């Protein structure tokens, strides 16, 4: 096969949200299961991968030289009020789903910090949100899904019954068991689109953590932002629940189920590498802490403001400049909660204070072998990639986390070692057995899979 040295039509340079390590691939738009089957059957030696909205931070949704399936036109959304479920195409975004179903009184079971993700991506990465301690991951709410395997065979998978192993291998399977084309999942019934939010400003990390443990059961949603510049590890805890209609003011009641968020701004496309430096990060952290009220209860916030504040700035990932950034997210069991402070200290020492750092408690894990969440603490810190000494510092943290029984989130990872991954996902071989049944030729692969020898 002759191939042009230069980029040809249909080929695109792809990166994750962190804008590091690009690779090129042939991107093919598919609008039906038949087309997906056809592309898989005609795959070249570099294989196939489905990509959603490219919000995974590292190299999970790219595959150099491969055929990348874009399923964004498979975006049907149907809400069935009788069963309380939504059936959506894999390419439907949570944003589109919310716009369609919030006015009907149905909210997605789980939303991460952005709603600009697809249903396929939400299942593939088994995403979690502020309600993990109560509701678990997105995958835990999926009733059934359609998967096209490595040979182009179509499967209807359910969490229980004969197909359960394939189902749970696909949940959190990072798109490596096949292409998800559709899924049906539970909704959270709501009577308003507002969230009743309690905010507490807390002066040090220990207090943040003890308050979070104490408050776990009181709210459906809770998360803490941590000031990574201050050695105290002070933070702001925000917790909330869907506000019942009765709690709304007369004015709010008139449009109780309104959902119409807009992007307020777009980050400029060219930003010098040094803009996000220690000074600006310090200023941001200080301001973010100060802007929070010391203590406030029952504030009404919109879905967008509460769950997805960064979606208000389109392409905010550009602020890190040409070298890009990564998000270091790990989970450790409660017994290793001290590693949260260790990680914050270590990042500050190497001069990598984070712009946005989030601490959250996880509930129990689900049956998916590669699903990230497990009971304990999870910390997610955005760090610019160009910092000297970062590789060594993160490798050291990896070791501590692995030794404590923790692990890193594949949807965020762009740098862990294959050994770290294999050690901290002990059910990998169990997962690989199921993957080999669905895709014996290894047609589905990604840069992440190659990097980590998955």
């Amino acid at each position, binding site marked *: 096969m002759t191939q042009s040295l230069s980029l040809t039509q249909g080929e695109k340079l792809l990166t994750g949200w962190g804008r590091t390590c690009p690779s090129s691939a042939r991107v093919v738009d598919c609008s039906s299961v038949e087309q997906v089957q056809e592309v898989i059957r005609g795959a070249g030696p*570099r294989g196939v991968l489905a990509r959603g909205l490219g919000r995974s931070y590292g190299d999970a949704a790219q595959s150099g030289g491969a055929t990348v399936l874009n399923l964004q036109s498979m975006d049907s959304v149907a809400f069935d009020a009788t069963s309380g479920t939504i059936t959506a195409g894999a390419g439907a975004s949570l944003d589109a789903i919310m716009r369609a179903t919030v006015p009907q009184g149905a909210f997605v079971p789980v939303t991460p910090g952005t709603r600009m993700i697809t249903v396929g991506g939400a299942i593939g990465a088994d995403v979690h949100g502020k309600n993990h301690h109560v509701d678990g991951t997105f995958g835990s709410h999926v009733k059934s899904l359609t998967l096209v395997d490595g040979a182009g065979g179509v499967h209807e998978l359910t969490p229980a019954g004969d197909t359960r192993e394939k189902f749970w291998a696909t949940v959190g399977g990072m798109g490596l068991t096949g292409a998800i084309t559709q899924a049906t999942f539970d909704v959270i019934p709501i009577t308003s689109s507002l969230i009743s939010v309690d905010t507490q400003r807390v002066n040090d990390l220990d207090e943040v953590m003890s308050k979070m443990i104490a408050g776990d059961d009181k709210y459906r949603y809770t998360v803490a932002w941590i000031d990574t510049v201050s050695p105290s590890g002070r933070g702001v805890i925000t917790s909330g629940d869907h506000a019942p209609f009765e709690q709304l003011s007369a004015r709010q009641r008139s449009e109780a189920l309104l959902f119409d968020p807009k992007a307020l701004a777009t980050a400029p496309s060219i930003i010098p590498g040094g803009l996000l430096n220690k000074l600006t990060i310090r200023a941001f952290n200080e301001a973010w802490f100060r802007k929070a009220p010391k203590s406030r209860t029952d504030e009404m916030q919109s879905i967008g403001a509460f769950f997805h504040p960064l979606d208000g700035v389109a392409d905010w990932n550009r602020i890190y400049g040409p070298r890009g950034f990564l998000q270091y997210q790990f989970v450790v069991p409660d017994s290793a909660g001290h590693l949260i402070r260790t990680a914050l200290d270590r990042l500050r020492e190497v001069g990598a204070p984070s712009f946005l750092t989030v601490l959250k408690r996880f509930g129990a894990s689900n049956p998916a072998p590669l699903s990230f969440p497990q009971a304990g603490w999870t910390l997610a810190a955005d760090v610019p990639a160009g910092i000297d000494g970062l590789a060594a510092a993160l490798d050291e943290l990896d070791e501590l986390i692995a030794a404590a029984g923790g692990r890193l989130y594949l949807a965020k990872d762009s740098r862990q070692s294959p050994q770290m991954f294999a050690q901290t996902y002990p059910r990998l071989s169990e997962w690989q057995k199921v993957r080999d049944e669905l895709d014996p030729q290894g047609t589905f692969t990604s840069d992440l899979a190659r990097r980590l020898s998955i």
Partner: protein
Amino acid sequence: MNDALGEPQSVLVLGGSSEIALATVNALPRRRLRRIVLAARPSAARDLAVTTLTAEGISGVTAVDFDARSTESHSVFINEIFDAGDIDIVLLAFGVLGDQEAAEADPALAVEIATTNYTGAVSIGLHVARRLRMQGHGSLVVYSSVAGDRARRSNFIYGSTKAGLDAFAQGLGDALHGTGAHVLVVRPGMVRTKMSAGMPEAPMTTDANVVADIVVKSLRRGKETVYAPGPLRFVMAGLKSMPRSVFRKLPR
């Protein structure tokens, strides 16, 4: 695959006993390095490098026989290496200085220099580019020379091969721009190595590890052309703009 922090997993060295290339391998970050292929004619230097790198804890260091001049073997050669796994960084570092005076007297010797330094590099360079393109990522580092910036009386045969190589590598880099595959052209000045041993030192003569550090830093920054040491850029700009009548009379 390079990771987000610029740590490579696999390196192919064409000219695997070249001191500058081996210094570059030594300077590369090693946290994720798991495969190094040293391609060169059999030599003690090549074997020693395998032993040393293995002893330093890198798991997959291998040596393979490679002759830049047997261009008909290049296709199979490169395919075998890439079929075994993606290569993140390729160092195209082979080359001979040759004996200018002897080559002036015997054009067959000049052809040998040209075949190794230029023809061989064009051949293997295109095969590498094809495979980097297929895998959608990777860097090719081409070791050019300031000798190619402007050919000098004392070594114009070598200089002309590097001039050709340099032009080829720049064009290749432009062709691959935006594909995920990337070409870095390095123009070292005089470097203290076996190749230059015994020669009088030119101004700004440097060491292999200095060149190596510049290569590694430039790879991380995604640069396309770099002089080693950096200030040579200005020296060469001056020399290139010098009238020929003056340039010709410069010592050596």
